């Protein structure tokens, strides 16, 4: 364990009767790019604010390395924040905004440091302007510079790219990642945008209703979701009700409405009785009904294509199974695959290795995004 990991132990925050964060345990290793991902109201921002010292936990402790910072005032913590919508001081110039923290700590040689930092974020000639005279992307970089210049042990980012348009956001994601690699400071990034979290973070913690559902690298979370929420919130999933009928050393044999499917034991979050069988839409292939499969693929037969959307790199199908459930299938437009039309009779194939199993007690629609993300 490195010298200044950020460790949250049993942290709970209640606002009246509402529990925003519930008994949270979390370790953020020093120097990592850590994302707290979750929908609005999941408690991720509250968690961040407790680390910043802007909220005091109802219970639990927050430690930074060897120091307990749980009740430390915000200005005594070696932690800085890039606020949502930036919170730049409107009455101060860009230069003075960036110099603010250094001046408070009584640092020497403020001017060269600020100039250097403004160069780093490519705003060298903007030092004399006021925040309102800058574009959103520029303001975002000022907010970053203002926090980074203090060399905090942990930098907190609260939806830092939320106010930017899509193109600028993609650009800033790469930029942020580069800066983090350069300075080597621990970044804790709060976001509701799963793509943003996956692009930037080494480790993602998916939060829901005040607790962490699952934590791991982006690939791990995507390939091995352990709850229905995670499987739906990160990317999209097809979840089909099944029953475990047999189990051997490496595999589970399942029954889905009379079809036999196989899932690797390593990817099973539930082992007996009723389960959800999950598969990502891009892992599924369509074939005309009755076509033979060679390799022991999982097959669901007798489906009908009900919707076809062409989205450029891929074609997205909806296929209705005999019992009425619709599954998503994304086929890459490589030119090597057949294309299908609405009403075609099809079978759905996928590799057993791409199958995962989840606890059937969980809501299959948890984490499905109901509103369109900006």
């Amino acid at each position, binding site marked *: 364990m490195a010298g200044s990991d950020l460790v949250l132990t049993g942290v709970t925050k209640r606002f009246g009767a509402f529990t925003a964060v519930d008994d949270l345990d979390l370790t953020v290793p020093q120097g990592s790019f850590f994302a707290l991902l979750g929908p609005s109201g999941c408690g991720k921002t509250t968690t961040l604010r407790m680390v910043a010292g*802007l909220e005091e936990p109802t219970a639990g402790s927050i430690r930074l390395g060897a120091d307990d910072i749980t009740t430390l*005032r915000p200005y005594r913590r070696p*932690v800085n924040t890039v*606020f949502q919508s930036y919170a*730049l001081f409107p009455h101060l110039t860009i230069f003075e905004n960036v110099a603010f923290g250094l001046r*408070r700590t009584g640092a020497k040689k403020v001017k060269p440091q600020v100039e250097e930092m403004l160069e780093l974020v490519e705003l060298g000639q903007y030092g004399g*302007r*006021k925040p309102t005279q800058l574009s959103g992307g520029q303001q975002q970089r000022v907010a970053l510079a203002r926090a980074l210049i203090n060399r905090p042990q942990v930098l907190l980012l609260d939806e830092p790219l939320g106010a930017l348009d899509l193109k600028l956001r993609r650009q800033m994601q790469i930029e942020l990642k580069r800066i983090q690699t350069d300075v080597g400071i621990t970044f804790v990034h709060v976001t509701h945008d799963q793509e943003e979290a996956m692009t930037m973070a080494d480790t993602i913690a998916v939060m829901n209703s005040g607790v962490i559902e699952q934590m791991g690298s982006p690939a791990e979370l995507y390939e091995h979701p352990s709850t229905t929420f995670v499987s739906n919130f990160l990317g999209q999933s097809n979840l089909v009700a099944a029953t475990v009928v047999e189990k051997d050393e490496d595999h589970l044999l399942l029954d889905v409405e009379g079809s036999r499917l196989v899932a690797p034991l390593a990817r099973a979050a539930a082992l007996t009785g009723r389960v959800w069988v999950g598969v990502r839409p891009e892992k599924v292939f369509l074939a005309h009904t009755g076509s033979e499969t060679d390799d022991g693929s999982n097959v669901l037969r007798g489906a009908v294509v009900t919707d076809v959307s062409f989205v450029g790199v891929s074609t997205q199908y909806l296929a209705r199974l005999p019992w009425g459930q619709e599954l998503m299938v994304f086929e890459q437009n490589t030119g090597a695959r057949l294309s299908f039309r609405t009403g075609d009779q099809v079978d759905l194939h996928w590799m057993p290795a791409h199958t995962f199993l989840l606890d059937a007690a969980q809501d299959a629609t948890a984490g499905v995004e109901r509103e369109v993300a900006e």
Partner: protein
Amino acid sequence: MSTLAYRGRRWFSDHVVLIYAILVLLYMFTPVFVVILMSFNEPAARQTYQFDAFTWNNWTNICAPFQLCDSVAVSLKVGLLATLVATLLGTLMAFAMVRHRFRGRSAANVFVFLPMASPEIVLGSSLLALFVNAGFAGVLGFWTIFLAHVMFCLSFVVVTVKARLSGLDPRLEQAAMDLYANEWQTFWRVTFPLVFPGILSAALLSFSLSFDDFIITNLNSGQTVTFPMFVWGAAQRGIPPQINVIGTIMFLVALALVLGGELGRRRRQIVR
């Protein structure tokens, strides 16, 4: 319908409100023009109030009418003092009401609102009733005017500063704290500079309310004469044109302050 006629109608319906608004503004300014004009008037007779002949005399002999400049001095003194006290107390109250929890907060809001909702004659006569009952009928004068002016300016200060303060994004102060400013530094480096324009406009408002007040002052002034009281007295006897000079000067000073502030704000934004 021809396009041209349609466009004409469209232009008119788009601009009719603006034209009407400019006419209303003209109406609001007409008396000001009269005041400026009359400041150059050489009155032929004492009783009639009309423009007779042009002269610079009123501007070169502002203090000629008996008591005029003394009354202006009294008004300035009361105005400055009342503004200072009302702005200070009102700002403290506004901070308490926006930033602190206390019992009876809605009662406090109503309490602050009531003086603004009372006719001046009622406020003035209440104060007079108090002073008379307390045996101060003989000492009415500068200080009773001051006490009264602070009272009615206070509510306006509280409302103005409160509006500014509650419009302040609390994240700015949190950002300051996050950047190593303690509570004291956060207040003086972030909160106060951002609320200051509100405090300044509250002070300007206070001063103009105080300088202009007649009804409350008239009831509680004893023998002291403020500028509005001088004008009132003069209106009964015959109006010396110098009061228009004072009116014009007040207008120009206030306009210079407001426009100067606005220009300064713009320049700071552009130059730096």
